[in-house]
Every structure is written in C-alpha cells, then in structure tokens.
C-alpha cells in the first residue's frame, strides 16, 4: 500500500442488510467503505436482470467519491448468465466509473483458484433454480461441484433475517468427503461468524461470498497484511508472493 488510507466502493442489492456490516467488521482501520444500492427485492432471474440496469448510474456515483476499487457485492447478479458474465459486468462498471472493479463471482473464482480448489460443495441460500445456475457457473469455470444444497429462499430480506447458525448447519449437512473446499453463497446470508469454526470442524478451506468479496477488494488495493478471524483466505492476504500470481 502506498497511500495512507483507501476507499472501497460497494454496489449492493437494495434489500441486502448483511454485506455492509460484514465488510465493516473485517476492514482494516485505514480502509473505509462507500456504498451505492441497486434496486432488488427478490432473488429471481427476472428481478436480477432488471437490477443490473441500474449498474452504470450507481457506479458513476461511487466514482464521484473517488473510490480506489468497486465491488459488486452480489453473487447471483454476477453469475446469472453463465461463464464470462461476471467479466461483462466488470467491464460495464469499469467503463461507467473509470475505476478498477470486481464482482463477488469473480472474487469467488479467484479465491478458489488461489486456494487450489478442484472439487467443491456448494451451500447457498438460493432456491433450486438459482442454485443450479450457480453450480453451472462454477462448473463452466472448471470446478467440480460434488454436492449442492440450497435453503430455497427467494425473498432477499428474509435471507438477511437468518442467523449465522443456518449457514453452519447447512454447511455441516452438505459437506462431502470428496470435496476439498466448501463454498457458502449469497452475500445477504450471514456467514462470516461461522467460517473459522467450519474450517476447524470440516478440515478444509471454507469460502463465503462476503469473505471473498472483502478479500478481492483488499487484494486489489494492495493490502498485504493478514485479516484474522474469518478463515484462511483472509489471513492469506499477508502472502505477498502467492497473491502476485492471482489474475
């Protein structure tokens, strides 16, 4: 890091109550979060495509606060149209804002590659339809999904009401011995509290979509110290040499 303080711009679905607090608790003191909202109430493909229309305008608003990086902190909206869609979304944000950008789905792929994951379990808050799209996205990007399970939720605000125990229980129930990594998906689902415990009990890396979003944003601004308490991925930010290879 070369500056004394940094600003992360976060694009968040309007009904998300989780990702702002989860970012804030993990961010170092010299990094502040600046949020813009995209209108979304239900996690259905139709509603999500409508939400993405808001992307250019809200990205420009974040650019006016001169943020160092912009993160689309939403999982389904960045994988909805399959492999490569997250890159399209990034290109749109970067063009509108003139700032480097990433998405939760992009961050997830980077994190999985960084950890050397090959075979994953997908545990999510989604219903079967969106979960199948998530699985397809991971598979199209070269990962094998050995098991997938979702909570069947469509109402985004209701996902925010779930306690972190719901992520813990779903992950414990869905884990598979052939999987090398556990993926917890949906940024409105509280996961940060249970990552450490799950890693200890499952004996494998656990990545969540909020955690990978924080990781990728900090990585992109050049933060190179470990962030403790939220799994091995955020501790790995101190591993400068290994991070250099992340593309």
């Amino acid at each position, binding site marked *: 890091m070369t500056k004394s303080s940094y600003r992360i711009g976060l694009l968040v679905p309007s009904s998300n109550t989780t990702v702002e607090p989860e970012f804030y608790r993990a961010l170092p003191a010299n990094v502040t979060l600046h*949020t813009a909202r995209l209108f979304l109430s239900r996690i259905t493909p139709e509603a999500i495509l409508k939400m993405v229309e808001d992307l250019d305008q809200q990205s420009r608003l974040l650019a006016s606060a001169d943020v160092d990086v912009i993160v689309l902190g939403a999982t389904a909206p960045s994988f909805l149209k399959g492999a490569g869609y997250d890159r399209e979304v990034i290109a749109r944000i970067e063009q509108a804002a003139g700032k480097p950008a990433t998405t939760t789905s992009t961050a997830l792929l980077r994190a999985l590659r960084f950890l050397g994951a090959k075979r994953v379990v997908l545990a999510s808050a989604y219903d079967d339809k969106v979960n199948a799209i998530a699985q397809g996205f991971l598979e199209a990007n070269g990962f094998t999904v050995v098991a997938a399970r979702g909570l069947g939720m469509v109402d985004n*605000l209701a996902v925010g009401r*779930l306690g972190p125990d719901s992520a813990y229980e779903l992950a414990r129930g869905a884990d598979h011995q052939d999987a090398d990594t556990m993926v917890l998906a949906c940024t409105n689902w509280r996961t940060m509290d249970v990552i450490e415990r799950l890693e200890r009990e499952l004996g494998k890396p656990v990545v969540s979509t909020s955690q990978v979003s924080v990781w990728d944003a900090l990585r992109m601004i050049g933060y190179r110290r470990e962030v403790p308490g939220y799994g091995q991925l955020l501790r790995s930010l101190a591993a400068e040499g290994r991070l250099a290879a992340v593309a």
Partner: protein
Amino acid sequence: MYGWRGRIGLLVPSINTTMEAEFWRIAPQGVSVHVARISGGRHGTPEELRGMENASKQAAKDVAMVEPDVVVYGCTSGSFFEGPEWNRKICDQLSEIAKAPAVTTAGAMAAALMAGGHKKVDVVTPYVDLTNERLKQFLKAHDIEVVTLGTFDMLDMFDHAKIEPGEIYRKVREIATPKSEAVFVACTQLRAMEVLDSLERDLGKPVYSAIQATAWQAYQAMGIDPGVTDCGSLLRKLSEPGVTEARGKHRKSA
C-alpha cells in the same frame, strides 16, 4: 439479522466520503448503517443542491428495502438551502417513501441548538458566500442569530473531506467569540466529530457538528442510546435517564 437493535438508512451525497465511516464508527452493538447515494454534483451550486432534493427520493426508495428504523438525509446545505419549509418537505417525502421517521442534517442542526436553548451561535462552514447567507437565514427562521461565521470557502464539496480535524479545531478557535453561547460546525464532509470534546473543553461552551447533530436526532428517533462518550456533550445527552426511552417507538419484528 444485522441491525437487530436499529437499522439506519443513510442517504449521502454521492461525493461524500466522511459520513458513512463516522456513522459506522459510533454505531453500537446491534445497530447497522445502510447507505444509498444521492446523485448530484460536487460544487454545491444552487441547481445541484435543489436537484438533490429530487434525487434523494430514489435513494430513499432503495434504502427503504432494508426496512430502516430511521431514514437520514445527510447533507447540511442540501437541507437548509431553500429554507425551513423546503427542509420539512424533504423530511415528509423521505419519511413516506422509507416508512420511517426522517432526519435531515439542517433539521438536526436547528433541533440541537434549540434543545440547548441557544440564541446566539458562531458557525464554521466550508461554504461559499451565497450558501453561508442561506445558512444564516435558516437559523434566523429558528430564532437563532449567527454572531460570527468562519469559512474555509471551498466550492468543491469533495475537497471538504480533505480538511483535517486539526484545521477545523483551529478555525473554530480563531473565530469563536465570547458573545456566542455555542458553536456549530456545518457540512457532513467535515471531520469535526473527533475534535468536539477538545473544543468544548477549551472554549467552555457546547460545540456541535453536522454529523454529530444528525446522529443525535437519528438515535433519538430510534430510541437507542449508542453510549458514545467521546464525540461531544450532545451525544452524551442520549445517555441521560429517560431520553431514549421516551422517544423511541420500538418496532415489532427483527
């Protein structure tokens, strides 16, 4: 759910880089801050400030989705510029859209000064002359006279955040007069909150700031005592017996 004690829907001018961080800094356990940005320019021209009134409706619609306990319009000039009636209109609009009590920074400024019983105040702002005149008029309409106004005189609202807390301290010391009963530091881009205690101690009178007064009114509306002890006497008032208990109407569901 995060924000099980209270969720603040915070609307900030898109260029603002100070207020979100300060609201998070003072948020106690169980209180969360959810932000939407108000589209507008960075020069604080009359057109821009008037345009923000309209743009704030969209931001309120977005933040309404988190079912906030209070909605906050976090801009001083954007709420005082066209006078008390205009400020009330903004409050009513946002409250209706977000289905929660609304607080604006200009309204909170007037409320804080009136709660202190102040009739004569000194004011520090980053604004240009026209905006400073409008601020004086707004306070005058609340029966509050500005004795001395000191300004950093900067048109660019984004640059207001670059003013260091120490510079704000010195500006207040430089302009404060014995005649004033209190000092108010305007603008939610100014990092004034961290020097309020030092100023109150050194001047021997209450010193308020835009973000602090806004937080005071927002926590009052939620009926929550954040237990903030290091951001001026105003926020410590929330810890006095009965203050939050009497005001807050607690919501039923999480």
